[in-house]
């Protein structure tokens, strides 16, 4: 029994997604906006809270098109009933994002002549189908499609379908006003044959207008299944360029990782020139693009992994127990100690480098990690000792090292970086000059 339990714990939940609209737009292709910078052109955000086989999956949605055109088809491992689907608050995903985003930290060099060396560090916040209204659709035996359940949650009309073959499912979706992107039909078949169900959602305009919300809220689904998988194949049906996917995995155990691709940490703890503070978004985009190419464009990157009970430094306030529960961490209660380990995975995928859907596993790895980049402010006061002289001399070497680090991380031109470096001005006053000043004023 023990063996079986262990085996089950390492099993997975499968989920996959497909957007069916006139545009080449797919789930796992949402645009993510964060803080003051929209880092990625096409990005999806998914939060998965998982304990054992019980899973709560939140699909963040920053859909920018016409609301009436919004529609998704997400294969799910089990038939979902109304009480397994709910609408989540967009702020929860934003909180997860802000809390786990790669961050800049600042340090200030102390006076090299001071007897007591005090460090002051402070944290800078990280810049850090047209689906027509479907007519009520009955199960169609001829098409091999069965409507397992049908309900409205928040601003979404939701249908859970099962299908026997992809042609029938395609016909059903077409008859009900969804337009399938070319090439999607072949991709539906493997999921049908794995006996997955299809979660189909579109916007109920009446509900949307009365809700008063300006944008579509995340959909959150709950289910129990050994499959622990996130689909990316269908999202790539018509994708012309790489898509970014950010997955937040909340676990009572430890770090999560991808089992069928490599999981790699983003470069971290690098000291970079001060001017990066003004262009942190560009810096991180370039850094990510560089490391993505260097690693062969087929790996998943860990950007953050930390027990939610703490953070050092914190880029945002840690999520409260209530917020964690809203994010899906159902095992968190006010009475029990907070036990949530957050892993932020960033996957940039293309059809040629990611042929298979992502499969995850939770591990017992409790090692903390964060994408963290350091600004080091030099001491600018006057130095009156030999240590100060040494310090001033060392600055040009430190700046050069920072420039080289930045060039290596981002692929930026070293010459352009050097031009932006601060000029080293010696504040060292030789003893004889101090003597002259003392004597003659």
């Amino acid at each position, binding site marked *: 029994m023990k063996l079986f339990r262990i*085996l089950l714990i*390492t*099993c997975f939940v499968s989920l996959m997604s497909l957007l069916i609209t006139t545009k080449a737009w797919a789930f796992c292709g949402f645009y993510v906006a964060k803080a003051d910078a929209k880092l990625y052109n096409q990005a999806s955000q998914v939060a998965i809270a998982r304990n054992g086989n019980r899973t709560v999956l939140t699909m963040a949605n920053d859909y920018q098109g016409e609301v009436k055109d919004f529609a998704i088809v997400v294969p799910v491992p089990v038939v979902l009933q109304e009480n397994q689907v709910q609408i989540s608050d967009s702020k929860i995903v934003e909180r997860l994002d802000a809390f786990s985003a790669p961050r800049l930290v600042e340090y200030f060099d102390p006076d090299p002549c001071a007897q007591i060396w005090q460090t002051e560090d402070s944290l800078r916040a990280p810049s850090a189908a047209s689906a027509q209204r479907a007519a009520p659709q009955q199960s169609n035996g001829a098409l091999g499609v069965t409507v397992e359940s049908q309900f409205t949650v928040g601003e979404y009309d939701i249908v859970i379908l099962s299908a026997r073959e992809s042609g029938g499912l395609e016909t059903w979706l077409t008859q009900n006003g969804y337009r399938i992107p070319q090439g999607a039909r072949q991709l539906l078949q493997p999921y049908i*044959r794995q006996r997955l169900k299809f979660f189909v959602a579109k916007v109920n305009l009446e509900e949307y207008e009365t809700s008063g919300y300006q944008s579509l809220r995340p959909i959150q689904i709950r289910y129990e299944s*050994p499959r622990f998988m996130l689909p990316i194949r269908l999202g790539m049906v018509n994708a012309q360029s790489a898509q970014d996917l950010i997955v937040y995995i909340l676990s009572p155990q430890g770090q999560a990782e991808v*089992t069928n691709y*490599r999981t790699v940490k983003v470069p971290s703890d690098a000291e970079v020139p001060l001017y990066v503070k003004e262009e942190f978004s560009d810096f991180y985009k370039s850094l990510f693009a560089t490391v993505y190419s260097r690693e062969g464009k*087929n790996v998943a990157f860990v950007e953050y992994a930390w027990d939610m009970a703490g953070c050092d430094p914190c880029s945002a306030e840690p999520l409260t127990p209530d917020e964690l529960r809203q994010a899906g961490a159902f095992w968190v209660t006010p009475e029990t100690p907070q036990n949530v380990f957050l892993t932020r995975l960033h996957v940039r995928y293309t059809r040629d480098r990611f042929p298979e859907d992502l499969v995850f*596993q939770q591990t*017992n790895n409790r090692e903390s990690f964060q994408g963290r980049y350091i600004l080091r402010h030099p001491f600018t006061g006057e130095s009156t000792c030999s240590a100060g002289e040494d310090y001033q001399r060392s600055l040009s070497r430190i700046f050069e090292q920072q420039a080289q680090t930045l060039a290596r991380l981002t692929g930026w031109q070293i010459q352009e970086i050097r031009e932006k470096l601060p000029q080293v001005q010696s504040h060292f006053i030789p003893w004889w000059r101090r003597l002259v000043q003392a004597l003659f004023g």
Partner: protein
Amino acid sequence: MLSNDARLYQILFLSLFLGVGIVARDWSLQPVMIGALIATCCCVQWSAAIQISAPFIQSLPSALVTSLGLSLLLRADHVVTLMLAGTLAILSKFCLRVQDKHIFNPGNFGIVAVLTFTQDAWVSPGQWGEEGWYVLLFLSAGGLVLGRIGRWDTSIAFLASYAGLEAARNFWLGWTWDVWTHRMMSGSLLVFALFMITDPRTVPNARIARIIWAGAIALLTFYLRNFWFISTAPFWALFSLAPLTILLDRVFLGDRFIWHKSWHKSSSELVKTDVANELLSVS
């Protein structure tokens, strides 16, 4: 002669993989953990050798192979967990035996034991990625070792069976063939097929039995991975089916493998076993 021992090649290649993993694959392995694992395996091997009054030096390569294999595959937050895995792996060679043969592959036993009994260990199946360069490296190194041991049939039977099953599934589901290629190019799968399942001291003696045995492991791996969704399926499959060797050895007669004679004796020769040596020679 020890210098002709195929285990020395194994040690060389496993060390090479470990070095490549640390340098080029972003593994966060700590030298102190590897050192502790090696020291533990050697100490336990030494203690056990004393208990049965057997020479330690001849069995040292086995302890090193086990510890390097565990370092490659197993991860844990605490060094004690790795030491426990090493201890159990070595002890399994001495305690779990039938007819002077190990029931379980030591490394596999250590991994399964700590995965089951601790809350600290894990295996990362995706750690190698799927690059062609590594496939070639593993195949070449595995080929050299297996050529000396004369147990190529086990790897071929496992890989061919598994590839066939995955191909059939791929065809039935209607996936494009790059899905199948991606699955088969997994570095972890190849390391398992070439360096773990082939341990000559735990595989059946007769060739036909080895082929049946490897095929059964491939089938169970396929089932656990695709129907139970277990990413570490090969380890559980090998662990579950290792005892089948006892039965197969009774049904199919074949020569028993001895490490230090592997260089001079062909695998088809029936070798008289030296119990004292055989007790120690394990990978």
